[in-house]
């Protein structure tokens, strides 16, 4: 693989995104109106934060299938600590946010501990804990959709600064945090090293177990932010708040160009991946495609993106 090839491959998703936007805009110029771009940004903010969390795990060469359960759990904790439609729980206003995030981080940490110390493969540990998360949320919320009435939480989706909802700024802030962790902290570099080759990383003195647990904890906290944004947007918390988000997040990471084998890609690629998925969804509605065509297009787009992102890699095995 020449250097030129790899450069070209990493720029592909961005070119795909630009091409998509132009194609949709030619058919319907309203796609590029400020109102619609704002709607795309608002729709992308929660999936972006979730995908950023998943990016760290995938960079490490593992997979996190707990997104829906982690979101359910943190959403339920959030609902328990803000003013809600059930009239029960503790109404402590904005102080509920750090509590929900701590709970989300702790949840991720447990996944990491199960994965590392019980030697359970990451996909199984995260999937199993995901079900546990949905279960806890079901018990906490009694299986209902519980409305969130706290105006401060709702403000994330309803209040606008410069024409964009606050959730968009939260998404951008989380992107900055993720980028900082990836490029300017030791844990970020260790995650990359682990994805590149675990034996080498261990041989050069990296504490592999610690890095894995920390990575799942960071991912958990990101899922918590994603859950809060989703609750704010839907005005309610429920055990099913994360339904469908796992597929969106993982496919966005892959479409952006982060390899499922680990060690290649990063958070900036994920932004492009999320935008491709959201722009596709938004654009297909604006173009008036029927639902069943949309699903097919989305599936093909993902396969195509993965193909474009792997320039003649000579892998012995594709797993």
């Amino acid at each position, binding site marked *: 693989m020449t250097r030129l090839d790899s450069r070209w491959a990493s720029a592909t998703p961005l070119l795909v995104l630009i091409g998509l936007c132009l194609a949709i805009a030619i058919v319907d110029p309203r796609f590029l109106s400020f*109102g619609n771009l704002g709607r795309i940004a608002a729709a992308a903010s929660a999936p972006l934060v979730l995908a950023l969390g998943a990016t760290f795990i995938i960079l490490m060469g593992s997979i996190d299938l707990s997104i829906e359960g982690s979101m359910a759990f943190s959403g339920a904790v959030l609902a328990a600590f803000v003013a809600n439609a059930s009239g*029960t729980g503790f109404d402590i206003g904005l102080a509920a946010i750090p509590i929900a995030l701590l709970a989300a981080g702790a949840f991720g940490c447990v996944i990491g501990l199960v994965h590392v110390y019980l030697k359970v493969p990451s996909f199984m540990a995260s999937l199993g804990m995901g079900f546990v998360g949905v279960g806890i*949320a079901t018990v906490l919320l*009694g299986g209902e959709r519980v409305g969130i009435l706290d105006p401060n939480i709702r403000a994330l*989706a309803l209040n606008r600064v410069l024409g964009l909802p606050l959730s968009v700024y939260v998404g951008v802030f989380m992107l900055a945090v993720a980028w900082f962790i990836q490029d300017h902290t030791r844990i970020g570099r260790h995650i990359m090293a682990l994805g590149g080759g675990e034996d080498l990383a261990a041989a050069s003195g990296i504490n592999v177990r610690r890095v894995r647990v920390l990575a799942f904890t960071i991912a958990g906290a990101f899922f918590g932010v994603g859950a809060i944004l989703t609750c704010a947007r839907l005005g309610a918390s429920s055990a099913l708040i994360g339904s469908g988000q796992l597929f969106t997040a993982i496919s966005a990471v892959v479409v952006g160009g982060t390899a499922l084998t680990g060690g290649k890609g990063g958070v900036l690629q994920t932004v492009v991946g999320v935008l491709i998925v959201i722009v596709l969804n938004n654009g297909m509605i604006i173009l008036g495609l029927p639902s*069943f065509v949309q699903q097919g297009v989305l599936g093909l787009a993902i396969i195509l993106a993965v193909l474009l992102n792997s320039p003649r890699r000579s892998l012995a095995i594709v797993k």
Partner: protein
Amino acid sequence: MSINDFMQKALIDRRRFLIGSALGVGVIGAPGLVRPAFAGTGYSHASSIRSLSNAFHAAWNKGAESFAQTIGDPHSALVTEGNSEKGIADIKAFLAKAGDKAILGVDPNDSPDARPIVEAVAAAKGHVVTVWNKPNDLHPWDFGDNYVAHMSFNGVPAGEQTAKALFDSFGGEGAIVALGGIPSNVSAIERKAGLLKAIEASNGKVQLLDFQDADWDSAKANNIVAAWLTRFGGDIKGVWAANDGMAIGALEALRAEGLAGQIQVTGVDGTRDAVQAVKNKEMAATVDWDPFWIGGIALSLGHHAATGAFSPSKEPQEHREFYGTGALITQADVEAYWKKNVEATPEVDWNDLWGRVSGQIQYG
């Protein structure tokens, strides 16, 4: 107090969510709440439902619990989590334990599941009532008395009535957009047919701008409505949704643009947040199936048949395969509904077996 008691108590309380009791804030009921009031009748009851994570089935389970308590029998929820094999295996395990003392209320995960379930119950000489899904060629009267009845709800009038309420909200003339459920789903097909019927009856005064399937999902509905606002802008006079979850997702998309209350939304199911939205004049209508009643009456039918209170094979066919009744809730009558069903826990007469039968199921 065992964890199981705690779970049951948490899920039984109809008016308060568990947040209260779980965190020790709400009124913790007396332990007697989940203990049988008296010795019971010797039967074992079970409800096979999709999950306890959605409002509809959570209420179903509460109704089933409530009925089982009134006669003092044990009840367990068998959760399929959308997995047909698990659903059937759990029912067989329950039958192995309870035998001919088994009373089952089943929401088959998929239509074909109903046949093996019914056959297993008949073989064990238990009693079963199915709800919503079954193959068209499977009939209770082919199984003597063990397959007591099948109950469903006609989605056509529900879709039609909510559509009419939506049209009235903008004076009967204008354009709407509509959100459907899972396209292969019987209730999604029926509700959509009802909507199309209402549009046809408007003689061209109401146009359907676009119809998209949002798979019963709030978040999906939210994104679709946001994109529709770009595509159709001010032309949208109303949003019709095939269930309340999508209606709430749509309503929040409108709220983010400052349009909540100006563009009316309708749903179907009668979940509490939707009824609240009707009360707030942000939704024009929803239909209440009363899942609490469904869960209890399914077991009550089975129990009455098992104890010989009535003999299913002697009943007319409209008591074996019937439509239940959905109650349309509009802004005009929401206050009365709220007082009766939310502020007070409605008293259900579990012995009134046929009070809500609205006709025999027709296969079109």
